[in-house]
């Protein structure tokens, strides 16, 4: 049970007793949180008193009347806002007016409860403010430690890592239980699928290591003058076997040489990513055009394919981690969903930019510009 402290600021004793009665055994529970919330009530009759209590105790919720003997409720609200206290305020007032509502909202009041209120109104106000407070605190906790993205990344990552383990384990169990009988040949498909899943898991782990290294800035870089054309040729050679299997031809449009100061390893990752995508997502007997050129400011890399292309929605998610386009056409194509995020990070590390032109069933063109 998690206890939230409610400070009730009202000079009418009757209101306080009423609130106490309603909230005595009241608890709030949310399906997304293990613990129920219960409430401890503290009361004060003046704004001055309330400020003292807020300063000295960890208050979570303030039920605040505006009309008080000394300073007004909105002034207490102002104080809370100025001090940036992590609490939520509900105004209770019989003198509700647009003017007060605007004032109070501007000063950060979360909600209003008009006086007189019934049990249900109070309970629902408390329930809402509790949810608001809980979510706000949770978000704050996650963002303050830079965790929000990390956390999402981790849950998707663990999904991507556990899925192949589950698949392979499932096949092994079926073999263990001899579900298809005693002839080992009956299990060929299961064995092959298991090997494929393990290979793709290995790729994911390698990509992930690249990704974290680039992201954390820990990747060691060796910047020196290199001939980009040489590296591009090696990348083409290494993709050829897969291209031949798929009857995809690769045409290169390279100058004799293209010298630039950069890290050779980074360029390799860029080229390998672009080419393997252009081949994997191409159609049978398709074509890849690989262009290297320069203008006055930039080295320009273009890879054009005649593949399945992308919808606008798929395009908008293209560089996000693990956002592989999942549709009938991509189902049989293996990929980790990290390649293009890594590519983008590396291009940005080199002060460059990536653009994509794409049309469904026609193909995509990736263009990278990196300044000299």
């Amino acid at each position: 049970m998690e206890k939230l402290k409610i400070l009730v600021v009202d000079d009418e004793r009757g209101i306080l007793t009423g609130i106490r009665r309603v909230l005595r055994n009241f608890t709030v529970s949310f399906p997304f949180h293990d613990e129920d919330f219960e409430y401890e009530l503290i009361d004060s009759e003046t704004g001055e008193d309330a400020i003292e209590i807020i300063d000295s105790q960890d208050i979570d919720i303030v039920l605040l009347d505006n009309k008080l003997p000394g300073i007004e409720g909105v002034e207490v609200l102002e104080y809370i806002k100025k001090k940036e206290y992590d609490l939520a305020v509900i105004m209770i007032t019989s003198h509700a007016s647009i003017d007060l509502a605007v004032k109070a909202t501007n000063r950060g009041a979360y909600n209003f409860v008009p006086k007189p209120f019934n049990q249900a109104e109070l309970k629902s106000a408390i329930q809402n403010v509790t949810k608001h407070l809980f979510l706000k605190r949770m978000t704050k906790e996650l963002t303050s430690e830079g965790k929000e993205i990390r956390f999402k990344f981790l849950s998707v990552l663990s999904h991507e890592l556990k899925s192949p383990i589950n698949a392979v384990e499932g096949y092994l169990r079926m073999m263990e239980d001899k579900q298809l009988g005693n002839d080992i040949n009956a299990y060929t498909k299961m064995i092959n699928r298991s090997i494929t899943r393990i290979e793709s898991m290995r790729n994911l782990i390698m990509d992930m290591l690249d990704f974290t290294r680039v992201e954390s800035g820990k990747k060691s870089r060796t910047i020196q003058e290199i001939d980009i054309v040489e590296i591009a040729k090696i990348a083409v050679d290494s993709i050829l076997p897969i291209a031949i299997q798929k009857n995809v031809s690769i045409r290169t449009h390279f100058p004799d040489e293209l010298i630039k100061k950069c890290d050779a390893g980074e360029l390799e990752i860029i080229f390998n990513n672009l080419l393997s995508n252009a081949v994997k997502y191409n159609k049978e007997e398709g074509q890849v055009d690989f262009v290297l050129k320069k203008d006055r400011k930039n080295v320009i890399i273009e890879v054009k394919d005649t593949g399945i292309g992308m919808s606008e929605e798929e395009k908008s998610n293209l560089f996000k981690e693990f956002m592989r386009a999942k549709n009938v056409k991509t189902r049989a194509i293996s990929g980790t969903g990290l390649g293009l995020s890594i590519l983008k990070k590396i291009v940005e590390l080199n002060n460059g930019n990536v653009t994509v032109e794409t049309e469904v069933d026609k193909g995509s063109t990736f263009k990278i510009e990196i300044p000299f």
Partner: protein
Amino acid sequence: MNKKSILLADDDRDYLEQMQFHVEKLGFKTILANNQKECEEKIETEKFDMAILDLMMENEDSGFILSYKLKKKYPDIPVILVSAVTKETRFVFQPEHDDSWIKADKMLEKGIRPDQLQREINKLLKI
């Protein structure tokens, strides 16, 4: 007696085929969906007695969405949600509770053994 049929949705084709194998071995017919979109179509067009849905497909919450849609159309058809990821999300999923925001009857973590699967199916279909 007619065989009961179970709608299976998973974007991991290995897992889907394994589920199909086990479920059919238990004596049920299966209807397969390879992703959330296909599953939505199957919910509209097919007849089935139960559904076993993967949680993370095109969307991180595909299973929740499907379960919600399915229960809206067929409140009495039991739904089991399965996922490789549960604890990592830090959320507690207890769809068995009446007041849960997740409209499903059971949530299971992947790595489900056939005997456990049989127990859960039988319980929900009251066999």
